[in-house]
């Protein structure tokens, strides 16, 4: 039961998500993914709980299902965010690979790695996510971005190599 209602449910929701994306990709994709995955989990827990009257062993089983399903859903959402973005190293590799045996001229590779590729798209992501605002021809950190960086800096203190 645990495998079916965690891994099985994850696969069902994954297929639902692919189906929705094929019809129309949402504007705020991460938010919609969170809604689909955790909405389904909530419905599943309520359904299974009511069916088995929420007694002791069932509660532990539901907790186990939630732990496995949540781990997979979060892992997939993180993976999805990484898929949305191009890796600069892989872009370089493919540019060289595409030129075959004649190789890629040094200057051409430098032209591939401009601020339009490395900086601008990530800055636009930050604006979309309300972490950064653009005003008076300048990019400024927004309160949401400041809160995030404070949290990240706390953990950075733990892993910082002097």
């Amino acid at each position: 039961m645990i495998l079916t209602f965690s891994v099985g449910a994850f696969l069902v929701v994954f297929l639902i998500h692919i189906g929705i994306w094929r019809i129309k990709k949402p504007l705020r994709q991460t938010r919609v993914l969170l809604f689909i995955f955790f909405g389904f989990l909530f419905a599943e827990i309520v359904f299974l709980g009511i069916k088995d009257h929420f007694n002791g062993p069932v509660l532990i089983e539901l907790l186990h299902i939630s732990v496995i399903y949540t781990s997979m859903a979060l892992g997939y959402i993180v993976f999805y965010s990484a898929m949305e973005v191009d890796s600069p190293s892989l872009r370089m590799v493919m540019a060289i690979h595409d030129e075959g045996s004649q190789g890629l001229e040094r200057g051409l590779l430098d032209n591939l790695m401009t601020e339009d590729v490395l900086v601008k798209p990530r800055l636009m992501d930050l604006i979309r996510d309300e972490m950064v605002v653009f005003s008076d021809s300048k990019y400024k950190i927004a309160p949401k971005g400041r809160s995030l960086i404070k949290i990240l800096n706390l953990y950075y203190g733990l892993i910082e190599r002097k």
Partner: protein
Amino acid sequence: MNYLNDLVQALVPVIGLAVNVLIQLISLKSIPKISLLKTIVIGFFFGFASILSIGWNNPYVLIANSIAYIFLGYCYFSFLGLVDYARRTVMLRQLEKVETGLSLEEISVRCGAGEMASLRLKRLLTKGHITLQDNRYYMRKQTLVIVAKVVTLMKLLVVGKKSEFVK
């Protein structure tokens, strides 16, 4: 007693993640000059070992817990990337320092856009993935080409396009 055992089984992936994080941090602080990546690998294997030692009695539960642990391990790996070197984090750190804000050019200079590219290029050269001859770059190893093709396939399946720069 049975309830307690079931409860522990339910929390095994989270216990594995806690072991992973603890061992990763301890190895980072106690082994001199160790790279972040190596500590992530060490932490992951210790966490996995803890899962195997707690949950070996039921194979189906062990499979489910192992899958959950691998996903959680991936989340932690990505979190460390976000904390340490992600381009978005580097930009936010730079913007946090200047109350009046920065222009695009200033952000590029402060975040070292040129440095970012040359650092990656240097890594590809030193690891022997590419080579530089007569001012031209050539492929040497095909490993990253295969990785890039797999990633592109996954992007097509999941995101629906080959690259973020394709409309």
